[in-house]
């Protein structure tokens, strides 16, 4: 079994499972309870918060635990839009966002907000100047994904952030869900106001995530209730889940150097092979793309069929974002890059983890070299 769909989700590490299990068995109290079992659970929970803060380069009070990337993105976007709507109702994002960002903006449009969707170039990248040019007097939020989950394109977050500093009345959010694993940054250094991550993308557990929110920023909550998470996110805290997230993030950082080189080698090897494979068109940019994602189109071939063929060989890759891969529609991200319908309809995404081995990459290459020419012959496109 070769699992190459790590952008969709990753396998939790054994240490993470252990941490989860231990926390769940020993610290089952409700951290808001005032008795010892409650305070012990709370102590553990706050330790996890401190660890995460340190690893992300943020203050402890800036860490808001959530149920995942979708919630983090929604909380940041709707939270700012509603909390600051008296200032203005104009928002800016890009055309290559994850559905949890895009749909949040679409929803806000139904409530009378105005949204500017900044276009991207053929590599899927926004131009920081275009972002700045979209800013208006009544803009309250800019949200740009850090690493695109389909193409792997890295956005110039730092430069956008620098340009936006001139507009102190607006806030800058980045969806760091794909970035946090292999393209880390320090929250403080990069200069964004809000930043979303999700535990299951770095070998933590599903249903866990963090929204980092710079001190002093107000957010209108999505959940109202007991007032947990500094009043921004009510609901009994998922203590073991967040302990597991902290553990997974720590290991991710510890293995960072090893990860980066190892994954880059795999990616380079795969790109080289794809360049010589007839019928393959690489979508992922060579420069400034995440080490773990390779997006490639096989025009005229159906990606589902390629995926099925690979599955038979025990290799698992995907079409695009898992959340929308049910619909057999062309990739909206690749279309937004202006790469044409044909490429958008025939793209597959291969995504690595630190645990991916060289042999696994070789096996994928071998299989693609057999499957693709065969399929092209059947489709009548091969000579």
């Amino acid at each position, binding site marked *: 079994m070769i699992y190459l769909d790590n952008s969709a989700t990753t396998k939790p590490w054994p240490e993470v499972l252990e941490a989860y299990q231990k926390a769940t068995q020993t610290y089952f109290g409700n951290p808001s*309870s005032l*008795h010892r079992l409650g305070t012990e659970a709370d102590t553990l929970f706050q330790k996890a918060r401190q660890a995460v803060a340190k690893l992300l380069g943020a203050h402890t009070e800036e860490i808001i635990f959530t149920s995942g990337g979708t919630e983090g993105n929604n909380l940041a976007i709707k939270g700012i839009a509603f909390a600051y709507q008296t200032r203005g109702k104009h928002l800016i994002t890009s055309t290559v966002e994850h559905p949890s960002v895009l749909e949040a903006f679409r929803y806000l449009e139904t409530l009378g907000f105005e949204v500017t969707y900044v276009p991207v170039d053929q590599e899927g990248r926004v131009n920081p100047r275009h972002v700045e040019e979209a800013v208006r007097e009544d803009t309250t939020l800019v949200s740009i994904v850090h690493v695109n989950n389909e193409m792997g394109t890295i956005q110039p977050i730092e430069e956008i952030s620098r340009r936006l500093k001139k507009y102190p009345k607006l806030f800058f959010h980045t969806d760091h869900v794909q970035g946090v694993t292999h393209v880390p940054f320090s929250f403080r250094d990069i200069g964004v106001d809000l930043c979303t991550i999700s535990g299951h993308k770095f070998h933590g557990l599903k249903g866990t995530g963090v929204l980092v929110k710079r001190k002093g920023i107000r957010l209108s909550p999505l959940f109202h*209730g007991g007032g947990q998470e500094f009043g921004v996110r009510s609901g009994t805290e998922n203590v073991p889940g967040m302990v597991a997230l902290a553990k997974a993030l720590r290991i991710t950082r510890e293995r960072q150097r090893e990860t980066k080189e190892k994954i880059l080698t795999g990616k380079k090897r795969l790109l080289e092979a794809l360049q010589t494979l007839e019928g393959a068109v690489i979508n992922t940019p060579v420069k400034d793309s995440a080490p773990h994602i390779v997006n490639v189109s096989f025009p005229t071939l159906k990606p589902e069929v390629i995926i099925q063929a690979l599955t038979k060989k025990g290799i698992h890759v995907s079409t695009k974002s898992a959340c929308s891969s049910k619909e057999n529609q062309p990739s909206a991200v690749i279309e937004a890059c202006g790469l044409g319908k044909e490429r958008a309809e025939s793209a597959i995404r291969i995504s690595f983890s630190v645990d991916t081995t060289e042999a696994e990459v070789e096996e994928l290459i071998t299989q693609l070299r057999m499957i693709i020419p065969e399929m092209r012959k059947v489709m009548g496109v091969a000579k």
Partner: protein
Amino acid sequence: MEKIYVDHAASTPIDERVITTMIEAMKNQYGNPSSIHSFGRDARKLLDEARQTLAQTIEAKPNEIVLTSGGTEANNLAIFGYARANKAKGNHIITSAIEHHAVLDACKQLEKEGFRVTYLPVNKDGYITKEQVEENMTDETILIAMMHANNETGVIQPANEIARLAKEKNIAFHTDAVQTYGVLPISVKEMQPTMMAVSSHKINGPKGIGFLYVKEGTKLIATFAGGEQEKKRRPGTENLPAIAGFATAAKVALEEREQRGSFYQHLTDSFVSALKEEEVPFQINGDANHRVPHIVNIYFPWTTVESFLVRLDFAGIAASSGSACTAGSLDPSHVLTAMFPEEGRAQSSVRFSVGKGNTKEEMEYIAREIKKMMKTI
């Protein structure tokens, strides 16, 4: 020193079988259920089975179960989701003064958005009557939110009657069943609510997971926008291990429900008799004959709750002053204040909530400790 946990209404220890299910799922079904490859399909299969199991526990259809991150989110989705999607029909909501903050604070937010909310007061026995609801209904009423049993007093509300009334009048009915799920028999076929919220960590399942039952055909505006998960009613990658663990906890709770119910009743009854035997002055808050078996809330006129809880904690006993969820605050309980507005009763009342691991001996030990504390005052 003994360590006795009698705060199960706040959270419960996780069942070993649940952990096994979860660890299994984390190791083997780690794919994303939306992925089309075999890891995804395996994960999807587990998700479908879990949903089926959860649906069966309340006699619902699988597509009527919307998985959430817990009871708070489920209640919020019901209140916000329904009100915002149906505001063309009217702008009035009826709820009670004793709801959990997940319902109350959502209603308060809706007031800011232009809705009118009636918070029905309760009687000294701790419940709302159907008549009260009836009297307050107007042509504008679109939603009635009434909890199934209160989390502080354990008093069971006439949810069945109110659900019937709501149905007759074509008004949506939501019930917060977080404290009754797995304890009382619940069938949506019988009760016929429009929506019902449930949380896993109250029934020996994991934290961070729950569901909202939503009757087929009900229009909701989702709290999150995003992917296609949960038929767009709740996007976000599904928290599969927790969902599978929740399903195991629910299945176990259903199988053991009757036994558990009578055991909990036996425990809380033993506690009350032991207090009597020790001749500790006390009164039970709320109708003792209409409460869930695992919760008993007791007024000790001779003490104040802060010092009482601290001393219990010293004796190794974990109880609470009411809802844990008011994020560690010691504000007087809004529930007891609603029941006894003129008395300072909330400042002298403690909630004891039992669970599977408790014993009759522990109940007697707690009563003896309370007696000792009384003597030293």
